[in-house]
């Protein structure tokens, strides 16, 4: 019995010891964690790390996950030439920790990002080039990071994709887009039953500083509008389902991260935040990509972003048949790859 116990404990001790797995090659598949302020954040590095050029994915949410951006297409198109670092922000995806609600703070997210870049350089070489790729709420995190101190010196460029940098403006643009599209569809007789509640809500809640509850409702209607609007390429959202086994996705952690009550409180704290005026200090090359049918982060955010950013090397791409899910995946990923090629 003693021998058996010894065997069990010895096996557990060995499994608990971690060897550094650092791949510099064409098909990296490394997982590591960054511990910072009561959270351990998972990072998955895929693709061509030998290129020494990394696209660091800052996901949306709050509470989404890097898992949902790791599609076969992005690995095929971007990952073939460059490395992709999928990063689960604190309390999202496969990130872990004890209670840490006190650390729900946008500055902390920006600090996490800075430390992650330091760890990427520590692992893969100080000479690696990093491009920041931010989506949706990730735009807020990336804006907090890029506008702080000299953080922008740590990256070579910034891809701002269906992202937000100004909470209030985001709400106003979503509101206007819902109202315009709703009225037009009702007038055309296209799915009026679907659009009428949306238009009614907009008419009952005139624009102005929206409350957090109104903001949440506008966001919900934004998602609904993307389901019922005409002309949108349907997006098959199967990345989590397909990845359960293959990617070892911890489903309960993923879903609990999305529904964390503290996350909602954090989301509420974001409502007054706007980075428009602070963007002037950012001078790295930027690529702005928006789906024309994106009601969640409308393309007007991209216009405001471009109007305020200090960069002279800036370009904007609009994807006509896309909403908030990068529906035209080939076109999006090819655009990212070209931007990296041009600026690496």
């Amino acid at each position: 019995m003693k021998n058996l116990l010894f065997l069990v404990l010895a096996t557990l001790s060995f499994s608990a010891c971690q060897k550094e797995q650092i791949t510099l090659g064409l098909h990296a598949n490394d997982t590591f964690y960054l511990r910072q302020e009561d959270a351990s954040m998972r990072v998955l590095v895929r693709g061509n790390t030998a290129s020494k050029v990394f696209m660091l994915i800052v996901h949306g949410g709050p509470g989404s996950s890097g898992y949902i951006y790791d599609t076969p297409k992005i690995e095929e198109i971007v990952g073939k030439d460059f490395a992709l670092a999928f990063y689960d922000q604190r309390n999202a995806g496969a990130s872990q920790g004890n209670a840490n609600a006190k650390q729900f703070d946008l500055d902390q997210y920006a600090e996490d990002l800075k430390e992650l870049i330091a760890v990427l350089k520590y692992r893969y070489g100080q000479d690696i080039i990093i491009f920041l790729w931010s989506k949706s709420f990730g735009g807020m995190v990336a804006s907090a990071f890029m506008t702080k101190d000299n953080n922008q010196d740590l990256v070579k460029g910034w891809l701002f994709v269906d992202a937000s940098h100004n909470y209030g403006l985001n709400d106003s643009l979503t509101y206007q887009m819902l109202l315009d599209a709703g009225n037009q569809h009702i007038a055309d007789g296209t799915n009026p039953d679907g659009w009428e509640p949306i238009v009614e809500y907009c008419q009952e809640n005139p624009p102005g500083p929206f409350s957090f509850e109104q903001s949440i409702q506008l966001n919900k209607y934004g998602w609904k509008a993307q389901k019922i609007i005409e002309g949108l390429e349907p997006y098959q959202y199967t990345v989590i389902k397909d990845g359960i086994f293959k990617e070892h996705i911890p489903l309960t952690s993923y879903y609990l991260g999305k529904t964390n009550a503290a996350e909602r409180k954090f989301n509420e704290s974001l409502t007054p935040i706007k980075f428009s005026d602070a963007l002037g200090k950012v001078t790295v090359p930027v690529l702005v990509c928006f789906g024309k049918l994106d009601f969640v982060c409308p393309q007007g955010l991209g216009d405001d972003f471009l109007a305020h950013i200090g960069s002279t090397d800036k370009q904007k791409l609009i994807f006509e048949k896309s909403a908030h899910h990068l529906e035209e995946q080939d076109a999006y990923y090819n655009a990212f790859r070209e931007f990296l090629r041009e600026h690496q």
Partner: protein
Amino acid sequence: MKTLIFLFVTWFFAECLAAQTLQPESGKISSNLKIAYNASILYPGFRAGVEYPIKRIDLTKYRRWRVLRHFSKMRYLSAELGYYHHTDFHDNIYLLAGWQMRKLRPRGFFTEFSPAFGYSRTFLGGETYLVDDAGNISLIKGAGYNYAILALGGGFGWVFRPKTSAYFRTSLLTMFPSNNIVYLRPTVELGLIWQPRHFWEARPKIVSKTKGKKS
């Protein structure tokens, strides 16, 4: 890990075969040993423990003139060690103390419910880095978290030899305090329960109950 499971199973069966003798009716009952393949749905692990008998309730249910059923309800205090490995996420080792309620039918089929409480230690599924205030980066050895753990399990089994049973159980592990308030983890178990002779014997309280009227 596979070798370890193989070793466990071999040892367990060898012990079972060597100990198939009926226990004398002295009022003393040996404790049970149990071992199981404990998968966190997809991810392998094990669970092993001991069940110390506290109470036995012999229940006879009558309906009109004929005896309908005999049941035996066993109550145990249990202690268990569990482990699972979730690739790239974490390894989790946990100790549980619980209350095991088992209802045994005459033909050997049983059902059980087992609430338990304990301690869990996870080990993250990848090397873990810490960046200090000065920007120095270090690897954390054995990085992971301590949690309190509550496990609720229910299952069924079958006594296929006088002292040996097989069982299946599903459990929900609730770990806290977690970064998402609680962390939930469903598990499934397939295992064996064995009552070795004269192993940690107890004199459980034996209660006989009759329900219904014998006409």
